[in-house]
């Protein structure tokens, strides 16, 4: 199935219809999405700041990341579910929105940054877990992570202000202009 058809099917799904027509669904789902995103960014920020040595290196990095990142994953899962519900409500509009596309790219970049950190940089954590400044690669990963997540949040808000007007006439045989 082609991509446009898949997106159209998502919008036409029963979940999409429910999200559009329920007076309570969108406000509740959107508020939950914001709360989940807040939890993701809040916990990630604390871990990233620790990588940058803020406020200091007296607490073990692994202890902070082990305690917080499990919350991050729960919150991220909730954000994905609520975000998908919001997407389903108006998929055809979101998929051509530049801010939405950039947000997805920023999310992907944040994921790649985290994967590289977890897969490579973190292997040597024994040498810098506590009491010493993390290596340059770890600090860079922390800084990149903060920048990317701030970008995700900024773009997420941007979506709401950039949906604008789509005056393009779709190629639809049901539209008759002459009678």
């Amino acid at each position, binding site marked *: 199935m082609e991509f446009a058809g898949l997106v159209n099917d998502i919008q036409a799904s029963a979940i999409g219809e429910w999200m559009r027509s329920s007076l309570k669904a969108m406000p509740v789902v959107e508020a939950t999405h914001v709360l989940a995103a807040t939890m993701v960014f809040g916990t990630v920020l604390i871990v990233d700041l620790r990588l940058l040595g803020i406020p200091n290196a007296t607490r073990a990095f692994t202890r902070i990341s082990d305690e917080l990142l499990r919350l991050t994953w729960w919150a991220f899962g909730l954000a994905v579910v609520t975000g998908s519900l919001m997407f389903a409500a108006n998929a055809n509009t979101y998929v051509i929105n530049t801010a939405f596309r950039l947000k997805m790219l920023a999310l992907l970049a944040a994921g790649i940054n985290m994967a590289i950190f977890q897969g490579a940089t973190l292997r040597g954590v024994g040498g810098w877990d506590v009491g010493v400044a993390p290596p340059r690669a770890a600090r860079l990963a922390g800084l990149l992570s903060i920048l990317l997540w701030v970008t995700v949040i900024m773009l997420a808000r941007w979506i709401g202000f950039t949906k604008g*007007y789509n*005056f393009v*006439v779709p190629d639809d045989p049901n539209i008759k202009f002459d*009678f």
Partner: protein
Amino acid sequence: MEMKKKAGLFQVAASLALVAGVAATAPAIAHHSFALYNMEQTLMFTGVVTRVNPDANHLQIFFAPMNEERKNVQRGEDGKPVIWAVEMTGSAQAAADGISVGTFPPGTIFSVGLHPLRSGEKAGARVNPGSIYKCPEKKPPAPGMQCDSVEGHVTIGGGQLPGAAPAR
């Protein structure tokens, strides 16, 4: 002295209640200004739906306005249909009123009044209160008329077509 103190407390409580009441009802009336629309001007259209954007904040219907004869849609110099958009309440409230992707599929002929954007872009806010009328499928009204004149039309919103000029 005690009476004065009690009266003062009552005034404070009453003021707080008033502020809370205004704060609670204001968003329901309008969550933003309508300054971007020319609320003094009302345009009346009968047109063919090209797409519906079921936005959570403001549902938009895009349409090609019909000419006065109601035989064709208006076209630009390039020969392509001129497209306008009418915006209204959020998709959920609009669906509750009977306006949704499902009830306004592409090709639907309908009549609506709108307050145009001051910017000159071909879009505007739905006149509210004011009805939207859907013509029966592929049955445009007679020349110069709106969908409310076509037998079998569907009325959405109750009331009448907004008093508007010029008719389009």
